[in-house]
């Protein structure tokens, strides 16, 4: 075990897989000599050379378009999109090409690649360095969507994503890149895609959260404990495919459900979580499913602390499920 930040765990996973499989290539804007704007790819070019870790021209559609070609040819590309806010020029390549390749070719061609991108707010990034765009990708058949919330998960899930046979959106909560340090297994460490985790056990209410919101919900659970309420936190870890049994078992146990996500509220991934719980566990619910989310606004700069769900807002959400 080594104590690492989340960004160090990402770097460790990339190195581990690049050593293990020479088909793995890493590229994107500033990922080579500089090692990435967040240093996720630090040291990769020095160790693996410029053929396996390289800077690209400043074109997201070119980065993902060529990544599709590389994956078709047999490489395991890991393109980095510097901020998820900049991914939209590549949206067509992801949605129309990478996601549909296996299906549209009857399984003849596949597109195993991991699109890594820092996402989410709380770093004073304004409109264009803060967005949580996960729902767009969850709504696209053919993609898997993975979001770690701890350094150990970041490593284990990234390794699993790189070994996956299909395109994976690997979204890294940049707000907790360096705020959280944790012991991470050295060497081989795989966290399977499609398996969530119970972050904290409880019996009175279930809070579902992913990414940087998991830590916020842990704070909220502490506040709720002071009010005598025992909160269980479920982190799905992969939004697609979703570990439904884990979530439903928890909600059936507690009878209350709060869904927390920092993306705009309307049609956010939390809406899907709420729908699943309503569809499959409504008879266990003691109160309404409550969403605690961002606002239906562009991401603000100065008032980002008001936009982002915090522990008090999550606590209020938990309280609502008891007021019904």
């Amino acid at each position: 075990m080594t104590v690492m930040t989340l960004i160090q765990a990402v770097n460790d996973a990339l190195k581990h897989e690049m050593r293990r499989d020479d088909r793995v290539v890493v590229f994107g804007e500033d990922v080579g000599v500089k090692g990435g704007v967040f240093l996720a790819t630090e040291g990769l070019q020095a160790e693996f050379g410029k053929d396996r870790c390289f800077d690209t021209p400043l074109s997201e559609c070119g980065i993902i378009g060529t990544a599709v070609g590389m994956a078709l040819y047999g490489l395991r590309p890991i393109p980095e999109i510097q901020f998820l806010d900049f991914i939209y020029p590549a949206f067509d390549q992801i949605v129309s090409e990478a996601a549909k390749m296996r299906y549209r070719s009857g399984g003849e061609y596949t597109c195993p690649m991991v699109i890594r991108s820092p996402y989410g707010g709380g770093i004073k990034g304004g409109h264009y360095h803060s967005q949580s765009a996960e729902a767009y990708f969850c709504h696209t058949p053919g993609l898997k969507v993975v979001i770690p919330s701890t350094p150990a998960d970041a490593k284990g899930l990234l390794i699993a994503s790189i070994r996956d046979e299909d395109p994976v959106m690997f979204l890294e909560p940049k707000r907790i890149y360096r705020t959280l340090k944790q012991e991470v297994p050295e060497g081989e460490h795989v966290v399977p895609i499609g398996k969530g985790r119970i972050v904290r056990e409880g019996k009175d209410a279930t809070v579902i959260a992913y990414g940087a919101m998991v830590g916020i919900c842990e704070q909220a659970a502490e506040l709720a404990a002071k009010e005598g309420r025992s909160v269980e936190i479920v982190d799905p870890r992969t939004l697609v495919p979703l570990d439904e049994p884990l979530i439903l078992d928890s909600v059936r146990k507690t009878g209350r459900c709060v869904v927390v996500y920092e993306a705009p509220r309307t049609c956010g991934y939390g809406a899907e979580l709420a729908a699943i719980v309503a569809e499959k566990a409504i008879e266990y619910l003691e109160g309404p499913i409550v969403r605690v989310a961002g606002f239906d606004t562009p991401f603000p700069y100065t008032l980002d602390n008001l936009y982002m769900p915090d522990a008090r807002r999550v606590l209020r959400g938990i309280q609502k499920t008891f007021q019904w």
Partner: protein
Amino acid sequence: MTRPTRSAKKGAAARTARKPAAPRARPVPPAASVPPPHGAAALLTVLSPEGELVGKDPGLPPERLVFLYEQMVQVREFDRRMLVLQRQGRIGFYGPILGQEAATIGSAAAMGPGDWVFPALREAAAAILRGLSLDAAIAQLMGKASDRCKGRQMPCHYTHKEAHYVSMSSVIGTQISHAVGAAMAARIRGDDTVVLGYMGDGATSANDFHAGMNFAAVYRAPVVLFCQNNQWAISVPLRQQSASETIAIKASAYGMPYARVDGNDVLAVYAATRAAVERARRGDGPTFLEALTYRRLGHSSSDDPTRYRDEAEVRVWEKRDPVERLRRFLRARGLWNDRREQELQERIANEVNAAIARVEAEPDPDPDTLVTDVHAELTPQLREQLADLRANLDAARGGREGAFPL
């Protein structure tokens, strides 16, 4: 890297000022001989419309010349019949090839078996030349059980993995950067694979054209980017697509060698593509080719070109017919005659008829294929949806069988 200085000339300073300040991946310098833009716009031609040798003969052996001709005749008959089937309601949609046979066959014939091809809409001939059977092609058009893409795509979206002929989408131009990426991968792996990426003239306006051209040149990818300039993007003529003097010269700005070739001259297309392929295989990077041709029919079976263009233009291009041109050349060389022509036409008609009959008798793809191949494995959610689909089908069957007979 050149940096702007006070003494630099105004033009040079303006050019460098547009470069990003931070050093990026160092591009390999472009090949030495980027032809001058305007002079190189001349059309590379080997055969005149009358089939006379007017340029440098690429020196193909007689059997190869006959092969090219037979491929062109085959795709013309295939194309004609498929459009008829569409008109009869036996195929849902069709994108006709008529007039562009030489551009596709000449370029595809210049590729090796291990090379890769990324097609656009009208490159069925490349798939067939590389081994896609008529049955498989027609199964794709009809969306039948044996369709390689399992009835999931509209007609004309062929795929053929053994031939490295890659499945395409209907989105214009996206395959350009796929071709470049595959070529980059080949270079990274140390393979001598060359990639051929097709596009139409309309695609040269798409963002992926710019990205693909730029990446190809920066990484010196072993790729041939081949534009079938058929002069119409549905109803928009080339002059409204681009103000550039030619499409070919766009390559110059990317630092990529290019050529402009008579797309209705199969030998010229072959020669130009061959040279570009050899260049790429030598490690000298990408080439851009513009093949000047003409889309003689509508964009698709859903399109009526008389609404937007003068049919007199079509008559002009009928006189530049690519199949006729090669036939005249072969006849003059003593490689072709009426008897062989008749035999070929009969053989192809029979083969197409037989393939249609076989494929049309096939069932639709299995209902389970609705949810397979989204990922390598069915997700729990898709398993649940499949169970629901099966239950619905069972209920529907039960409903019919159990219904009161009157």
